[in-house]
């Protein structure tokens, strides 16, 4: 296309013009995306997972800018300059059908972009990012200090969450509190239908599947509260299946978990033994 655009006799060199406009638009939009919009992209910086996710999102959004600008500039330019005035006279354009060089160039560039993206994503996955997404019973990526991780079992149930702390006598509570700066290993499961444990500000999301153990890791880095919501349609009160969790200091956590152990001691001893998976009672609807 653009190679054939270089017509000698005074006609505008459309290809060059498009390229210049595109370069300017990209030069403006890329810094805007990185430094102006980028910092506001969710989900904040509360944990290692959200920091990774934020970086990834800014990188992807920035990489999208040249593509977005190319299409926008090209289409806008074509619409502006290749427009035929309204009227009954039908004028045909030039009958050019294809240029293999441009097609091959386009194919190579898009392929390289895809391979680059996939490589970046894979490296990212192997190096801690994506730890927050449910990895199943055999995680691909495991954080360095996983041995000392605080184990928390998340049990989904229509329509609330229960959190079990196996290293604290298997106490079960409806509240989720986590100590700051300590690796946490979630084991997510369900006792009835499929739910999805989404700790939004922590950057954790893992499906809760009956009879399955789904692991996810997070290291909270800041004190504060976070929302927990169900992100998989689970029936009538799906939208109400939420709670608020807290990230607190080590000492506060110790106090809190001790209080929970006392509070629920009578219940804890009647609970079924700790298990990574639970099976629902067979449902017979009839």
């Amino acid at each position, binding site marked *: *296309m653009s190679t054939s655009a270089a017509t000698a006799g005074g006609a505008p060199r459309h290809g060059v013009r498009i390229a210049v406009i595109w370069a300017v638009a990209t030069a403006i939009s890329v810094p805007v995306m990185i430094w102006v919009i980028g910092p506001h992209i969710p989900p904040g910086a509360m944990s290692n997972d959200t920091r990774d996710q934020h970086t990834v999102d800014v990188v992807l959004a920035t990489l999208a800018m040249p593509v977005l600008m190319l299409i926008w500039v090209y289409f806008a330019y074509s619409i502006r300059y290749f427009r035929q005035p309204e009227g009954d006279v039908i004028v045909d354009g030039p009958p050019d059908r294809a240029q293999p060089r441009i097609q091959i160039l386009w194919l190579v560039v898009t392929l390289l972009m895809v391979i680059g993206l996939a490589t970046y*994503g894979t490296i990212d996955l192997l190096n801690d990012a*994506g730890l927050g997404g449910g990895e199943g019973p055999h995680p691909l990526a495991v954080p360095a200090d996983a041995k000392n991780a605080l184990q928390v079992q998340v049990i989904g149930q229509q329509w609330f969450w229960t959190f079990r702390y196996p290293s604290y006598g298997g106490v079960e509570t409806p509240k989720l509190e986590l100590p700051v700066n300590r690796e946490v290993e979630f084991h997510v499961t369900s006792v009835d239908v499929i739910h999805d444990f989404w700790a*939004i500000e922590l950057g954790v999301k893992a499906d809760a599947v009956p*009879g399955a153990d789904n692991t996810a890791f997070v290291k909270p880095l800041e004190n504060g509260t976070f929302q927990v919501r169900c992100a998989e*349609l689970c029936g009538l*009160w799906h939208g109400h299946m939420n709670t608020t969790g807290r990230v607190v200091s080590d000492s506060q956590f110790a106090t809190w978990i001790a209080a929970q152990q006392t509070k629920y001691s009578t219940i804890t001893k009647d609970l079924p033994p700790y298990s990574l998976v639970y099976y629902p009672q067979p449902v017979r609807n009839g």
Partner: protein
Amino acid sequence: MESASVRQPQVVKSSTRIPSAWGQLLGYNVIWATVLAIVGYIVLHKIGDTIGAHSVAETGSGGSDQDDIAILMGMVGAILGWIGGLGFLNYPVSRILGRPATLREREEHGAWRYFRLCTDHKVVAIQYLVAVLFFFFIAGLNAMFIRTELTSDNATLFGAGNYLTLVGLHGTMMLMMMSAGILGPLGNYLVPLMIGSRRMAFPRIESLTMWLTVLAGFILLAATLLGGFPTGWTGYAPLADEARAGIDAYLVSFALIGVALALVGANMLVTVITLRAPGMHWNRLPIFVWGMVTTSILAVLAAPVLLAALIMVMMDRSIDTTFFVAAQGGSPLLWEELFWFFGHPEVYILALPGFAIVLEILPVFARKPLWGYRVAVAGMFGVALMSFMVWQHHLFMSGINSNLRPFYMFTTELISVPTGMVFLNAMGTLWKAKIRFTVPMLFALAFFFNFLFGGLSGVFLSDVPSDVLTHGSYFVMAHFHYTIMGGLVFALMGGIYYWLPKMTGFKLNEKLGKIHFWAMFIFFNLTFFPLFAAGMLGMPRRVSNYNASLHTLNVFVSSAAFCLGASMLVFLGNLVWSMVFKRERAGDNPWHSKGLEWQLPSPVPVYNFERIPVINTDPYQYGSPDAPPVADFGPRVVAGQAGAT
């Protein structure tokens, strides 16, 4: 081709005998079918009730509305009554009994043929179009109800249960109707015209798919009478196992659509392979036909998987099998795998026809040949092939083997390469073009604007670390509305504005069309772009209760959505106004297209071509004054050929 001489006598014989009005009323038609469907439901429901009471131990709480065996059998009865009442069983039954088949469906005139089995592909296509638009507007109305409920951050208006039913009806009906939405009306109408054929390969099957689609739509609506269903369009298994009887309607209607999709795909493939006119080489096939071919391949291969999975849920619910019951050796993840193995090709069943339409429209109004024809075809095949290799990205958070994630991330991103080719085709076609801004062209250009956002947001979803944030959130919802509504529905609208003059002979009003376009384009983007943000800020899909901090955003989106709904009323108004009240003859070739279908009179005569044409060239000979006409229609030139520029 060979059919010309064989069929001519039948035409004469059947068109001489038009039954009286009473004969029409009592013959096989939709009224008779409705009656038989209701009778069939009642009879088989009764039988099922008896079987259920005696064969399956009632371990639960009981209650007649939960008797799934009776309800499912009743629906089978309704289906048999429906197709029997429409006369689909006459031919096979006659043949089995060794009697000569009576083919009453050969009638060619009168309004009644629109209410019965008709084997004219143009009649079936118009039946399809009316049916699809009817259900499209019902599903759109559900979307309006959904947005109304979401103006409040707590389920106050309809209540949580009704809200989920609305969500499920909207999603399922849109998916069902839109997957039939282009193959059915435009595919059935245009493919024979574009390849120079008088018919589809299997006319009775073609009609059957149309009537099954209608029945599926009504059965799905019947879910509201059976208590609704809480699963959305995805019908995830343990929830579907425990849901009340409304889910049976979802299962049966979706299964019917699965059957219809597979049949319509097979019919399309056989038609294109066997019924091309002489000279219609594969490299002269219009790009729209290629789009239908690739879509049909997906439909034929993917829909049976859905059908199998749906039957497994039906069995789980009715006769207590345990395919998806974790405690008894089943797996809830099995449904997700099977469903998305169908579901992701389904997404491209929705996308490829959109590509096909816009690439067919662009050359006409750019007055240039389609740029990169071979690459466009290759791109469509690439998309079709790749779409079977990406389904596990729907399960990224489900605890699948996490070693598989890099692979599915790669394949998902790879599918953007063939999709990108379609953009290159459009860009090449627009280069130094003579663009005319008709309504179809506006829709075609908007397709690329919208689909670009859909595609770019898809890159975020394919990248697993980023997907942790966006999976199952409104980000996904915005993403697929940008591809399906912004892509397919815009293309469908463009296609309707472009081809309706050929189908009916009347043009849609240009001014109303432009109002419709701009309203739809602006409010579509105002509705769905903010939802990307809603998802990233923590709003899960299908909730009627959300964080109060998102309230303002949702009220804004709802307001825009109502305007989007109003723009659809402009379309409906335009349709009624231009087709019923203020009819303006379109002429045979109002767009000055070089396509084969535009060389025929509008509306197209019953047997399409007086003689099977001999194809000289592909239909994109713009800017080549010396090129031969697209086809040689034989010595007796069909009216309208002179309309070509």
